[in-house]
């Protein structure tokens, strides 16, 4: 897979660990436990620097700008604001996947009075203040005493931490060389317990330490106004990282591509439409990669000369796929192995999107993955969530509720208005919750109805129909937990009055209808329309 831009995670680790392939861990893996100290600054480059200053200086800056496409202004700002040691704190902010961390770490390698040490703490991977303190102190402790420091007690309280940090830093910066402390993903702290306390501590470190040789750098995807109330006497100066423009994205994607001609003609077709949907490079890469493979399909020889007719043919070939790609967040290839799926989804935020993703991807090939009883269970859960409980008796009477059209009344203006507000309310509230008993009752009703239909077609033997019913019921709780785990249903907190858990269905009507069709169940008859 030729990937022009590495995704976030690898960017981060490669930016740091690339210079030193022997380094055992990458910062993205830095966990609460004291990690082995990493050499952030390549020693060989440091040696080179000492020899020729003049032109060498210029060429390293050029190399830096070359490594950061589209980030020229930000990189020069960084170099200027970080460089000779006494510096005010700095805050890098900008959206996700705009190259903040990469630019910072590369710039730290290029700044000229070489920093004595760089301590990098990604708060996303350090889930507690204690872990953060431990990581910082181990990174700052002198290498000789690394074994001794691991035995040292990790400070719990902010006061102990600041004292320990000051001791560590005073030793390091006594020679007048700079120490850089980098706090990445500052925004995640806001959702922690006692977040205010830790954030103010971090943002006021400049006031607390009062060591001129220590430069503090914060990286955050949240805008600076999130931190205004927490800063101390010195607010950090800001550097904004805007999202890439179309041309910059094209440059980034084109970098190091093995077949630049073909790829650029592909990008001229595919990039603009996708760019209207999302501007994040990581998502664009994930979407473009399978599309490009499709684009190449009609070509026998990838090195063939591209003339206008071939280009048109390729365009016509890609057009339907492009339209499809615009409407999906990530594609699950048919008959693909599981790890390949994981590959595709790893770029985005899988956890939060799982509910949506699973719904969409499964809707096409649901038939192959779900047992009949699970489908019925899903349908009954859907009905239980959508219909008011008071109507259950009317809908599921002994005849199977097929005669509910009789109950319609004439609607007056007032009731129409009421209907509107009800509809609005339903849109706001979303699906309702239901207890397990209600789900089982509905399940029993709808299976008993469809059983007749099923029985006629598939199992003419009456014995089989009878046992089929109990077969469906036997492991229903197991099925239920499976559905819960796969996020089709969600189990909410137990109701304080009844004490038992309540469930809610997460699927939308389209999917429910699709499922109903697959088991030829007349779902629309049972949905209560207001």
């Amino acid at each position: 897979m030729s990937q022009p831009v590495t995704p976030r995670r690898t960017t981060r680790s490669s930016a740091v660990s690339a210079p030193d392939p022997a380094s055992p861990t990458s910062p993205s893996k830095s966990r609460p436990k004291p990690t082995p100290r990493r050499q952030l600054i390549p020693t060989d480059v440091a040696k080179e620097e000492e020899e020729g200053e003049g032109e060498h200086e210029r060429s390293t800056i050029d190399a830096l700008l070359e490594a950061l496409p589209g980030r020229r202004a930000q990189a020069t700002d960084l170099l200027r604001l970080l460089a000779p040691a006494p510096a005010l704190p700095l805050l890098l902010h900008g959206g996700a996947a705009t190259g903040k961390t990469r630019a910072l770490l590369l710039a730290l390698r290029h700044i000229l009075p070489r920093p004595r040490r760089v301590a990098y703490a990604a708060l996303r991977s350090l889930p507690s203040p204690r872990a953060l303190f431990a990581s910082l102190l181990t990174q700052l402790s002198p290498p000789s005493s690394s074994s001794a420091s691991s035995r040292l007690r990790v400070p719990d309280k902010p006061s102990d931490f600041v004292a320990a940090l000051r001791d560590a830093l005073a030793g390091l910066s006594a020679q007048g060389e700079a120490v850089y402390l980098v706090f990445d993903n500052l925004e995640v702290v806001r959702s922690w317990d006692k977040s205010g306390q830790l954030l103010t501590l971090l943002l006021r470190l400049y006031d607390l330490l009062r060591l001129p040789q220590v430069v503090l750098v914060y990286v955050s995807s949240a805008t600076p106004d999130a931190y205004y109330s927490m800063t101390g006497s010195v607010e950090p100066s800001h550097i904004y990282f805007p999202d890439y423009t179309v041309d910059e994205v094209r440059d980034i994607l084109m970098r190091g591509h093995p077949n630049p001609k073909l790829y650029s003609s592909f990008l001229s077709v595919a990039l603009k439409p996708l760019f209207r949907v999302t501007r994040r490079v990581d998502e664009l890469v994930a979407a473009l990669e399978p599309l490009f493979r499709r684009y190449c399909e009609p070509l026998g020889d990838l090195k063939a000369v591209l003339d206008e007719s071939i280009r048109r043919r390729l365009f016509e070939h890609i057009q339907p796929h492009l339209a499809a790609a615009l409407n999906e967040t990530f594609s699950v290839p048919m008959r693909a192995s599981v790890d390949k799926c994981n590959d595709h989804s790893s770029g985005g935020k899988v956890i939060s999107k799982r509910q949506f993703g699973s719904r969409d991807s499964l809707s096409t090939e649901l038939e192959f993955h779900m047992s009949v009883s699970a489908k019925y269970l899903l349908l009954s859960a859907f009905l239980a969530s959508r219909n008011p409980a008071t109507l259950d008796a009317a809908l599921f009477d002994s005849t199977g509720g097929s005669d509910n059209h009789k109950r319609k009344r004439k609607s007056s203006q007032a009731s129409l208005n009421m209907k509107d507000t009800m509809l609005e309310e339903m849109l706001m509230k979303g699906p309702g919750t239901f207890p397990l008993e209600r789900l089982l009752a509905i399940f029993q009703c709808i299976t008993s109805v469809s059983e007749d239909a099923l029985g006629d077609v598939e199992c003419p033997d009456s014995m089989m129909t009878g046992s089929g019913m109990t077969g469906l019921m036997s492991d229903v709780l197991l099925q239920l937990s499976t559905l819960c785990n796969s996020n089709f249903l969600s189990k909410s907190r137990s109701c304080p009055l009844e004490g038992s858990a309540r469930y809610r269905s997460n699927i939308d009507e389209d999917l429910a209808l699709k499922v109903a069709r697959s088991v030829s169940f007349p779902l629309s008859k049972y949905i209560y329309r207001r």
Partner: protein
Amino acid sequence: MAAASVASQAQAVLRGRLCNPGFVHSALRSSPDTNYSKLKYLVASSVSEACNNSVLLLGPRGCGKAAVVDMVLDDLKKEHPDAISVIRLNGMLHSDDNCAMKEIARQLCLEHQLSFSKMASSDDNTEFMIDMLRECGLAHKTILFVLEEFDLFAQGKQRLLYSLLDAMQSLTSQAVVIGVSCRLDADQLLEKRVRSRFSHRKLLFVPSPLDDIQRLVEHLLVLTKDSGLPAQYITDYNSRLTNIFIDNKFKGCLNSLMDADATTSNILRFLFRAVSYMNMESGFLSMECFQKALSSMQRQPKTDSLQDLSILELYILVCMHRLEDKEQSSYNFTSIMKEYRSIQDAYKTSDKYSSTVCFRAFEHLLDRELISFGDNRGRNQALEYRSVKLLISSRELAQSLKLNTTCPAVLQKLLDRERYM
């Protein structure tokens, strides 16, 4: 090459000055009737007259309260090297009474070359502090307590403040408590028993007027003969700088900067940026440096991130805005989608996407904090049913649509039409 190295030397000197609060506020030393001279008189007289005292320094952040305290303490240490010892506490770190007592005991031990026991209880530490106060009083030695973030000590039971101030009531003790806080009502937070033991001396720090700031800028940027740079360079540099200072554009820069925030720290940040932008080729500060620094400080984060949105994300924002204009009290992703579909049906644009793609755009907006969930209720509810709200004004949205060159005309129309309707 040589010019560049001189320039970077000069830049290093200037940066060092800007990052050194002692240098920034050193101009105060010479002028009478400042907070510096008042505080110094107060503390010096309590040291020489062997009495107890307490004072609060109040004012917004970044006005140099802590720097003034530092300068006064430095001066006093030079004048009375043996007669004072300083204990520093910070409300952010030591607001817990036990922890603060321990820290006081630790610093007292450090000052007087005693061995500090980590195992000592809080009562032991309190007793130790009272004993030390008496001993120091008998030896005519003043203990200065500097309590930064004073308001945070006033949380809870204020046991620390009480025991500290109560110990100072005896005739034998000799101590000064200097409280530093950015809350102007810090003394109102004190309990009655603490307040009655507190002398109500307050020094108020306010942002300086324009004249003082101009003097400060000159003090910070003009190079002196003793900075170790070539004399020719210094004269060239200073003459260029004075030209900039009398320029009206520069005054305009300073004015617009101070309109937003007139604290010293804000000025320092501005100067630091300007100095960092110094042209290394010529080696001098120019008007462009200051203008560039000003424009980088006046960025509007919200407007910036509005410019970074994709077309679909803008559609969602416009839909939300339309819903708000309809005075719909609360709405969520499903109602936004309904609005979005109705717009797409009405205008038949090419930007009709599936709801999953829209949801991803919606999540991006949440990430950028241009929208947020309306309440914390229903955390276990699916995201698309939680009510959301816009965090930007209609003016900001309209402006960003206008600035966005790729924005389709329909969007602009959708926003405009309802504004005038």
